[in-house]
């Protein structure tokens, strides 16, 4: 935010324009007994230079991926962002948060939306993608609402406990007043047992949600689970890691009906509190139930290629009471960044990025397991994250490692009390061997204290 001045002259001009003598005069309608009657107890205003220095000092207290070695994951990841992403996304023509409401007046924005959708379809192996949703959590919830509408089965929704805990909370909020039972299937072995799915799924189940790779980084038995889900006529909803699709099968190839994801890892920064980027793709037969905006390509009356928002009858601003979702917009700027990122990497670049993540994560898992007092939590195939269990106080350990310069991982204590000694460690392509070895050494020292 820029520092812009408001001079006493500016203030007088504004008051004169509206015909008021003072700011006090504007407040006379507020009863005197509820007014404070004195100035707020705040220090005197700073000059621009003072303010810049003050805020920089405050910001300097933060531990971030810029000044620490980041092994934190659990939904937001420290992947490399090529500078072309910032160069394109910061162009004035594109610099807007949402698709404008007079959408067709902004053909460039719509073209980006269309290309983004095309990239997400290619990535997931599914037929149709929307122009994005708010984040990975709301994308899961919207996918479930879609599945309820498509199957006409309001009764029951199944979700694996290995799905991101915050996504599950978001879903439970969405379902709270809808008379739908949300059943969480336990994953004590760090993955969802397909036999448990077979036992729990029935004819009233609209869908089952898994995350693959899951919150612990492990792969799920997606083919067996998908089959069990389809045998009961339910839909298979998969939350995936976009980067993982460089080496894993696309969701469309193993039977996912709706595939959703958090798209931060595609060229977007880790930002506390967001904005983040929800991705949603599905089979073409569900296109009329897809939430949010959908850009279509067509020709104008002169025969030129152009883009329009299409199928808007699904949106609440036309038939609010019949809408399949309340989302009428998208994350245009973040979707643009994702589109530029995927285009810059290309298919080969995505494969290489995914391979680097997987290899470095596997090296890190082996290296950390050699540290006395550390053991792997699960014996499952994984992608770029894994869980270690440590001796002693996890919070104290993580705080100590932060002081050593390592954001070592995410404690599972809050969301998985049975894994209170567990830490999810994420390793992206940015981590070096020296950094991984450095974490192992620091961990060993801290555990020996």
């Amino acid at each position, binding site marked *: 935010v820029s520092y812009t001045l408001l001079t006493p002259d500016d203030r007088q001009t504004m008051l004169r324009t509206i015909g008021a003598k003072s700011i006090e005069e504007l407040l006379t309608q507020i009863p005197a007994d509820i007014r404070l009657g004195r100035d707020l107890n705040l220090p005197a205003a700073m000059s621009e230079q003072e303010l810049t220095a003050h805020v920089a000092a405050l910001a300097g207290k933060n531990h971030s991926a810029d000044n620490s070695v980041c092994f934190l994951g659990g939904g937001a990841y420290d992947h490399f962002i090529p500078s072309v992403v910032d160069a394109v996304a910061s162009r004035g023509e594109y610099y807007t948060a949402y698709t404008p409401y007079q959408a067709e007046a902004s053909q460039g924005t719509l073209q980006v939306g269309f290309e983004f959708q095309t990239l997400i379809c290619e990535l997931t192996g599914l037929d149709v993608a929307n122009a994005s949703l708010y984040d990975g959590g709301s994308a899961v919830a919207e996918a479930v609402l879609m599945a309820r509408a498509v199957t*006409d089965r309001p009764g029951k929704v199944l979700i694996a406990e290995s799905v991101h805990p915050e996504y599950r909370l978001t879903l439970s909020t969405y379902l709270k007043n809808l008379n739908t039972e949300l059943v969480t299937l336990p994953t004590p072995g760090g993955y969802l047992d397909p036999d448990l799915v077979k036992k729990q799924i029935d004819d009233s189940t609209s869908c089952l949600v898994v995350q693959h790779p899951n919150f612990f980084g492990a792969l799920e038995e997606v083919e067996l689970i998908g089959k069990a889900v389809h045998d009961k006529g339910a839909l298979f909803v998969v939350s995936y890691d976009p980067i993982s699709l460089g080496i894993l099968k696309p969701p469309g190839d193993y039977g996912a009906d709706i595939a959703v994801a958090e798209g931060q890892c595609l060229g977007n920064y880790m930002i506390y509190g967001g904005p983040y980027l929800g991705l949603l793709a599905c089979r073409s037969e569900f296109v*009329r139930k897809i939430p949010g905006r959908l850009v279509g390509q067509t020709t104008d009356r002169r025969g030129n290629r152009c883009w329009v928002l299409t199928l808007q*009858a699904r949106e609440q601003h*036309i*038939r609010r009471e*019949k809408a399949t979702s309340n989302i009428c917009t998208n994350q245009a700027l973040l979707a643009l960044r994702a589109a530029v990122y995927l285009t810059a990497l290309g298919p080969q670049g995505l494969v290489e990025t995914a391979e680097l993540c997987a290899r470095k994560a596997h090296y890190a898992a082996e290296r950390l397991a050699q540290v006395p007092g550390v053991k792997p939590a699960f014996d499952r195939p994984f992608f770029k994250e894994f869980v270690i269990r440590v001796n002693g106080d996890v919070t104290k350990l993580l705080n100590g490692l932060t002081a050593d310069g390592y954001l070592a991982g995410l404690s599972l204590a809050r969301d998985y009390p049975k894994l209170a000694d567990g830490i999810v460690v994420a390793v992206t392509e940015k981590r070096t061997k020296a950094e991984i070895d450095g974490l192992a050494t620091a961990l060993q020292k801290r555990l020996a204290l």
Partner: protein
Amino acid sequence: MDPKTLRYAKTHEWAALNGDIVTVGVSQFAVDLLTDITHVELPKVGRSVTAGAACGEIESVKAVSDLYAPVEGTVAAVNSDAAANPGLVTAEPYGQGWLFKITVKPGTKLDHLLDLKQYEDHVTHEAH
């Protein structure tokens, strides 16, 4: 179907009773209002429907409208040709553009619906 022998709902569906099966479509008047029909969403076979309650949708270049069941019963069949090619509904609302069939209880009558004369009076009134 001969429009003269059909019964009509005020919401512009027509109904034809044959044994315990009621065939349902939309009237020529509705088709004229909607102009080009682009999508019809029909109820699932086996689903129970209530007279006067929405059970599907019909979308045209002009508007999206609900489709109401004219009688109570269970959906026996849907016209998948019309779903695949909504132009059929525009072209032949009383013929190949029928929409769905409902199995009704034996002895069900369509007396609560309008005959052609009453329906025409109703739409004349509604048009003004």
